[in-house]
């Protein structure tokens, strides 16, 4: 294929502290091609979300990037001036968050919050933006969008709210959509609908997706390629099919073991799952696994 849309190169990220920097991400590298859906999977705390925030340039104070590059459409986002980065955010790179209740401002109507996108990035008037917001709601299959546009978040169900988030994220036809656990907080049935929606809309618009989840099942259903993160490192990366058929890293195998067998996912059968903690709790196993990581983990002991 051609140039990657997003090229994360040797990203290091630390938590700065008086007593020295604490490494959070080490040497993360991966690429996403235009239109591709890339999954990042890992336990909570493994650094998936932080990676996405680093790409968006939304890291908060004690966290900071200490090395590497985030090249998006040929330019290093880390070196961009804040103003340029701001213009890019939402417009070219958009993001959906995990908790649709708190990710929306409870005191604003959803219409207004969608409309903000058009005002910010396309210089539309509020009136025009609101009209577009109705369309956007319609496009994410929110029923009765003319009425819903005046709703407050608390008047909507979780699934609807997440659709609002998607509508907001896709409002400006971004080239890359970062979806950070977009379905985790939802009912299982709603999950499937939302996933399908993301898949369809992005496919139709050719939007690349960085899909973050701890749920291998979800990842499997939507992603072409998958990176497995563990303790701040990308421990394995492969095509989805290849990864599932041949997990190389011990941790990946652990994750797989924790996954209910395909097909029984929705029924939550009584079969015994491998507890992921029992795999990773033993620190000696951890250290050992570091050595077989595909890419450098020279100073991994400090994690």
């Amino acid at each position: 294929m051609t140039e990657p849309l997003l090229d994360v190169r040797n990203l290091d990220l630390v938590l700065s502290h008086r007593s020295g920097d604490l490494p959070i991400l080490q040497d993360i590298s991966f690429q996403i091609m235009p239109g591709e859906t890339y999954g990042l999977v890992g336990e909570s705390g493994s650094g998936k979300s932080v990676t996405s925030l680093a790409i968006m340039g939304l890291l908060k104070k004690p966290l900071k990037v200490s090395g590497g590059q985030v090249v998006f459409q040929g330019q290093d986002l880390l070196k961009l001036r804040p103003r340029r980065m701001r213009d890019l955010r939402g417009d070219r790179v958009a993001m959906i968050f995990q908790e649709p209740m708190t990710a929306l401002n409870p005191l604003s109507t959803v219409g207004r919050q969608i409309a903000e996108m058009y005002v910010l990035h396309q210089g539309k008037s509020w009136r025009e933006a609101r009209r577009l917001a109705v369309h956007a709601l319609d496009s994410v299959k929110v029923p009765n969008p003319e009425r819903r546009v005046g709703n407050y978040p608390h008047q909507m169900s979780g699934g609807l709210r997440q659709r609002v988030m998607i509508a907001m994220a896709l409002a400006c036809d971004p080239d890359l959509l970062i979806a950070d656990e977009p379905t985790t907080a939802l009912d299982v049935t709603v999950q499937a609908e939302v996933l399908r929606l993301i898949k369809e809309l992005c496919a139709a618009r050719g939007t690349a997706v960085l899909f973050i989840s701890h749920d291998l099942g979800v990842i499997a259903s939507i992603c072409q390629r998958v990176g497995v993160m563990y303790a701040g490192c990308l421990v394995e990366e492969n095509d989805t099919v290849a990864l599932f058929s041949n997990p190389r890293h011990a941790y990946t195998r652990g994750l797989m073991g924790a996954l209910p067998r395909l097909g029984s996912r929705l029924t939550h059968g009584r079969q015994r799952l491998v507890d992921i903690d029992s795999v990773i709790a033993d620190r000696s196993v951890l250290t050992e696994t570091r050595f077989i990581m595909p890419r450098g983990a020279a100073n991994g002991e400090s994690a």
Partner: protein
Amino acid sequence: MLQFTIRRILQVIPTLLVVALLIFVIFSVVPGSFAASLFSDGRTTANPEMIAQLNRELGLDLPLPQRFLNYVMDLAHLDLGTSFRTRQPVLQLINDRMWASLQLAVAAMVFAVVIGVPLGFIAAMRPGSILDSVTMIGAVSGLSMPQFWLGLLLMYVFALQLGWLPSFGYGNGSLRNLILPAITLGVTPLALLARTTRAGVLDVMNADFIRTAHAKGMSESKVVRWHVARNALVLVVTTVGLQFGSMIGQAVVIEKLFAWPGIGSLLVDSVAIRDIPVVQGTILVIVLWFLLINTAVDLIYAAIDPRIKQR
């Protein structure tokens, strides 16, 4: 919304009635009587006949339950009674004084909001900075100072040493007269507002939807204007409401110090001479004021926060 409003206003009435009863009971057992207080300054000599006659005249010789009944009946007709001292309707006396108190309270609150809210905002924008520390230490200091002491210091500095402002009085409602008492009274709400604004803004700034706003590519100033300000406002409005009510209590001291003709000083003077109808009436009006303001706050709150109305 209208139903909500009416319901909230109706809720005020039982509280008011209980307060009326409470105040009545308290001041029916208070030692000292109006008639006897008349000669406490030693200027005139005690005169039992006069006291007895005065008590008869004022209806103080009636049994307590009867007096309370009369009192409640009058209240039902919005009649707060007649002052022992001035023989004027209490409502009239309160009306004469209330506007000065309102003026003082509003001015103090405006001062507190205009200074306190931005300070809290700025402090929250740069948590941990020097400005933040100074603001917060200043705020807690403002809360730790006896108000009359502060007022006295301000009076000495700005009226006497610098001669910028008049030191006392109403001065026909001139703004210059209002400044010192309003600042003195405003310091406590200012400090509280700075603190709550800061806490509120910090709270909002850490909310997920602010991250969303940033992810949308919004500039810092737009984030603040579009999302932070409005949400932090909820807390500010609540604080303003609560403070507005309790400020009347504090105003008692300030009005006395600055010879400000408000209901606070009317209350203290009336307590001192046991002019019970005025005491009862003034406290009732103050409580009503407090309740109405809180009702207003609830309504504003409901207007700002769409989630409230549903409850």
